[in-house]
């Protein structure tokens, strides 16, 4: 280097010695990523706008009463969402009722109990389940799961718990119950892998404390791991709920698509998402608008579940950093 003292600082500052990509790479990367971030915001805003626009005439015509009335009559152009809200609520909560304990059990097994070598393979297997396209899961639901539930599980449940109206005496290979089971299969991988991550934030020193005190592994889990993870588990379940509420394809395939609110979960029903998926093509403008209204409800529910879950996750992360 033979730069004289006067030019050295200016050439350093202008960066002329560096190549073009080298000089502008960082800035370009920044712009590209900024653009991507803005774009996703714009798309979310656009979708929300479109959905609300579509729903406009139904919202002004039916108001909030839409949520509490349950007739869906395209011929007389009368629309109410209660039956679909009921279908969504029962199928999603039912699925989470099964999926939550199952997911916690899987996560506990994988973080605390399973032999170390087998942990990763099993975890990968469980997560692969999340990769099965929902339409294929739905197909399996039609071909295998539905008939099996109809012939075996539903009669058994009715025999054991038939005094509860949920487990009524009429069976069908399609309906709320198969939808619940399909949604369970779809949510378990998500909820269990999130729960596993939550368990990983439990301070090892606290777990050692329980063991050193003469606690069994079970004692350690119930006194340390589970209580400490509670907010995180709730977040994981909320995200699972978000997934279940929004799932359309597989549910449409197995739920039967019948109107009405029935206590019996063994007979066909319909959810908001599957109603939108099943009916939109070729519907009248007001009918489409009513479906748009359903979509608005679905969107709000999804955002709420997702938002609450994220807040909880942030709380957990902050606490994990503190301790």
């Amino acid at each position, binding site marked *: 280097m033979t730069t004289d003292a006067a030019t050295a600082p200016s050439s350093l500052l202008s960066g002329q010695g560096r190549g073009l990509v080298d000089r502008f790479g960082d800035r370009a990367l920044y712009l590209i990523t900024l653009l991507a971030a803005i774009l996703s915001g714009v798309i979310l805003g656009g979708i929300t706008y479109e959905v609300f626009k579509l729903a406009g005439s139904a919202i002004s015509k039916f108001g909030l009463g839409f949520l509490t009335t349950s007739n869906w009559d395209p011929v007389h152009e009368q629309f109410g969402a209660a039956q679909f809200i009921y279908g969504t609520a029962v199928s999603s909560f039912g699925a989470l009722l099964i999926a939550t304990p199952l997911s916690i059990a899987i996560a506990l097994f994988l973080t605390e109990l399973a032999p170390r070598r087998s942990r990763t393979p099993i975890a990968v297997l469980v997560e692969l389940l999340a990769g099965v396209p929902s339409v294929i899961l739905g197909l399996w639901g039609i071909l295998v799961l539905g008939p099996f539930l109809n012939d075996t599980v539903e009669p058994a449940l009715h025999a054991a718990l038939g005094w509860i109206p949920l487990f009524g005496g009429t069976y069908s290979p399609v309906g709320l119950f198969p939808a619940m089971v399909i949604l369970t299969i779809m949510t378990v991988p998500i909820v269990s892998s999130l729960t596993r991550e939550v368990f990983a934030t439990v301070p090892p020193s606290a777990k050692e404390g329980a063991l050193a005190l003469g606690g069994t592994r079970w004692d350690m889990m119930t*006194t340390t791991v589970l209580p400490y993870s509670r907010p995180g588990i709730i977040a994981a379940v909320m995200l699972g709920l978000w997934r279940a509420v929004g799932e359309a394809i597989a549910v449409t395939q197995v739920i039967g698509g019948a109107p009405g609110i029935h206590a019996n979960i063994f007979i066909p029903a319909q959810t908001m998402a599957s109603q939108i998926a099943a009916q939109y093509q070729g519907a009248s403008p007001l009918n489409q608008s009513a479906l748009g209204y359903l979509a608005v409800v679905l969107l709000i529910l999804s955002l709420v579940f997702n938002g609450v879950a994220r807040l909880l996750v942030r709380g957990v992360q902050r606490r994990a950093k503190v301790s």
Partner: protein
Amino acid sequence: MDYEPSDVTVVDRKDEITSRIPRPAEAPAPASPPQQSSETPASGLERMHATRHIRLEDLHAYYGSNHAVKGVNLSFEPGKVTAIIGPSGCGKSTMVRCVNRMHEEIPGARSQGRVLLDDVDLRGPGVDVVAVRRFVGMVFQKANPFPTMSIFDNVAAGLRFTGTPRDEITDRVNAALEAAGLWDEVEGRLSEPGMSLSGGQQQRLCIARALAVEPAVLLMDEPCSALDPVATLKIEELIGQLKQRVTIAVVTHNMQQAGRVADTTAFMLSGELVEVGPTEKMFTNPDDERTEQYVTGKFG
């Protein structure tokens, strides 16, 4: 609370250790009428069994291929405090963690040799690890109360593990808090989170938690290293009071502390036990040159 051997109801729980039953029953006193416990509120620690002798024989410990403890022979005498000193990484923690078998909780870790509690080999076949840890309590370097539990529940946790009857728990929690010198500071706020206490109080909470299950042996791994001098002094006083009832081993980096609390001091160096003897002698006139150098601060 002065210690009188003749007053102590010695509960012989040797059988429990060798049984594989995961939840050893508490002292066999189901026939006692329930009102008895209210007549003798401090029943908890008075029922503590006599102190026990711990003897390590040719103890080796490994982390994978790392040979961390290399054939240690050492005794923790009843009624005495044994201090374990040595430079960082010499295997002090590893050695004491072999005694309550916490060492084996670490993936890839294993150990060899004998750890005798009186004449029972704690590492022997048929010995239930959960029972071992109920006999051999442990206090860690960093206070680790159960993060979600109240002060009361922290101390009661171990009692609940053993299935102690509800009506006994309150008395024993109070007695343990008393024994750990924490009672006066937490009285009236037992339902507050354990985490709301100061660092020194949390450490004494952990000591109370360990004492509540009435261990025969208490292992303390640098219990004061995160504490200020006042809190340290409190714990040292506590060690002095407890040693009559519990056999105590203290790992420490602090020579003065070893000098203040320990009757016997053991010096370790790169996984080996260099020398063990009366604390007084170890600090003034040790046999081994390396001990001399270490205690006078010439290396380490």
